[in-house]
């Protein structure tokens, strides 16, 4: 079968979206279902069919969502109603829209944030934390000990130590108690 000529193909737009919180492991398929569900819930099946959204790429805390040209507004509003998938809470922050994936990738490379690593957070990034015996950075807040999950640009995401409460708290370096 011969491919359809470019002029007869559907016109598409691509939206670059940042996934918060930083360090979230993105399941492309699950995220697609969450976005699809949000579009259907907000605009209905017929509009969802016109938007024809798809998650076409997911890398380093960002995803590229595809839609039909002219439906960016509907998609953007629907994306702001996505609050998570399964038990994972997240927020999708719109960064840019473009007609090609390549230009979004170029933009993404420019605004790329450091890769969330499992290695200990360096001292200079998060000066108020203290290193625990197992190499993880830990910090105090509200009289409790927390493990630092992410630390970037003054933002610190922590998880309480222990097995009972594993919810993330969102702090800043100024909130941390000096050990």
């Amino acid at each position, binding site marked *: 079968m011969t491919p359809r000529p470019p002029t007869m193909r559907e016109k598409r737009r691509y939206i670059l979206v940042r996934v*918060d*919180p930083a360090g979230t492991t993105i399941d492309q398929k699950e995220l697609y279902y969450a976005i699809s569900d949000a579009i259907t*819930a*907000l605009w209905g099946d017929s509009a969802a069919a016109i938007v024809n959204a798809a998650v076409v790429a997911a890398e380093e805390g960002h995803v590229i969502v595809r839609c039909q040209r002219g439906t960016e*507004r509907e998609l*953007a*509003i629907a994306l*702001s*109603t996505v*609050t998570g998938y399964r038990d994972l*809470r*997240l*927020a999708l*922050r*719109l960064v840019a829209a473009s007609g090609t994936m390549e230009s979004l990738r170029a933009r993404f490379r420019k605004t790329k944030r450091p890769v969330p690593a499992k290695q200990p957070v360096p001292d200079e990034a998060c000066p108020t934390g203290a290193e625990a015996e197992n190499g993880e950075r830990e910090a105090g807040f*509200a009289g409790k000990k927390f493990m630092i999950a992410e630390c970037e640009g*003054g*933002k610190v995401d922590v998880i309480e130590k222990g097995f009972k409460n594993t*919810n*993330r*708290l*969102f*702090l*800043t370096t*100024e*909130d941390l108690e000096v050990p």
Partner: protein
Amino acid sequence: MKITDACVCPYPLGDSTVRRMALEAGKLGFDSIVAVDAQPLDFAGVRVCPGILIRDTAAKDVISRVKRGRDVGGVIMVQARDNGFNRAVIGVKGVHVLCGIHAADKTAFDHVTAKMAADNRVAVDIDLSPVIGGRGIVRQRAIHRYRDILMFSRRFGFPLTLSTHARSVLELRAVREIAGLCSLLGMDEHDVEAAFSGIAAVTSPADRAVRVIG
């Protein structure tokens, strides 16, 4: 205070500290936020106004709590209930915002309440959390109620405020996203702009009808 999120709930009510909320809000395009039970603060270029949220309280107790709140300073918000309660609360001097109208009775806010709100310069809060997080009938009811409020606001001229009631930084939304969500309620660009500065409108001293000169 031109672009304000009219209500956020930082730690310990939520999982994000007030500084983190301010930092994120600044990045999302806000210049100020109203944080429930927080201290006044300027952080990362964002002004944090303390908010006092009064709910599940009888009308007569609201008066004493508002009096206490006025001494402390900050934005005083009262959770809407039935029509009689709302009328009584709007008449109390010192109340800035009537919030949670989407969860109140269908008849909780009528033309008389709207006129009173306009006369007493009390804003009605549009809480976007049911529009963002709600699905099905919850969201439909909220949108319907807000459309009704918007109609009254255009007719009687009482201020509106926009809030996310975020308990986490993940529940905050960018100014552009909020404008998009408000378009679902029938608000245009000017309505959204006016609603973002609704807190400034109700907290600034009112212009006197008559000014004595000399």
